[in-house]
């Protein structure tokens, strides 16, 4: 079934993102593009509810509600992974900042001692 391929590939992509994501402008652009597409798709699904069933049928899923559920799970997983990576990045920044502060403090204390002697 087409849907199985799509979902499997999407989950694989989330896994690759977990391991290999880089903070580049193109990655950011792709994420923003996804959000815009999801918004438009959501808008269409609200205005024309039966379209989801049509698309679901084309993909071999059956019901439109199931299509929404599957998409939601994949996007939610991606969001978790993305936030995890963001947190790692923030921790790195905090560490660099704390380290710089520590070394600057050491230099200040050295200068004070130097003044005394």
């Amino acid at each position, binding site marked *: 079934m087409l849907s199985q391929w799509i979902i499997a590939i999407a989950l694989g992509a989330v896994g690759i993102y977990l*391991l290999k994501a880089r903070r580049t402008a193109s990655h950011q652009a792709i994420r923003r593009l996804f959000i815009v597409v999801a918004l438009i798709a959501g808008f269409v699904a609200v205005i024309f509810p039966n379209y989801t069933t049509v698309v679901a049928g084309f993909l071999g899923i059956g019901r439109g509600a199931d299509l929404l559920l599957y998409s939601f799970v994949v996007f939610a997983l991606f969001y978790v992974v993305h936030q995890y990576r963001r947190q790692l990045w923030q921790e790195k920044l*905090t560490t660099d900042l*704390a*380290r710089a502060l520590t*070394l600057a403090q050491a230099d200040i204390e050295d200068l004070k001692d130097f003044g005394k*002697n």
Partner: protein
Amino acid sequence: MVCQNEKVSVAQPARDTHNREDDAWVLIPLFNEGQVIHGVVSDLTSRFSHILCVDDGSSDDSASIARAAGATVLRHPINLGQGAALQTGFDYLLTRTEATHVITFDADGQHRLADALEMLELARRKKLSVVFGSRFLDKRTKPGFKKRAVLKVAVLLTRAITGLRLTDAHNGLRVLSREALGHIRLQQNGMSHATEIVHQLAVAKLSWIEHPVEVLYTDYSRRKGQSLLNSINILIDLMVR
């Protein structure tokens, strides 16, 4: 860094300084070890001129005790983890001292001064970049069944990740040459840094050896052991960067 030398000698005026190591620094990551750090530092000052403690945001008075015992103390403003403390120490030694070797040493008193001196001598005599301490090369250390199992899993994991056939992956006692320090950039703030160090040294293809050491398990140090599940954390930490 004239002032550094003076600070240490002022703190230890009565010591006989003829036998002391001037070129090798001892680096101790320090976190809430107020009960034991004085003994550890003053023991080391009998043979080393330079002890560097990196206090990782302790909430007790570890830092001032270490300073009073004769160590140079750097303080992290917040708690970052042992790996981060080591890297801060490495940065300090590379940019602000002339140290030829660094000996990483645990603050809780589980390592022996004699082992550190032997490893340093070995590194100098054989011109090795790295000497790892291993508690599994002889029968002196008695870790107990559970701790042995945990450490063995960590060893297998480290071998799988780094390709280096070490017998003890998580031993805090190591001697690193200044050259080796230049190849280390620890990103793992937590306990995964022990495997990360081995990995980075393996990538740099530096000369290394393991040296048998004894780890002294006190009730105090035993309480802080790692769990088996933590091996999974180390694996994920090193894969996801």
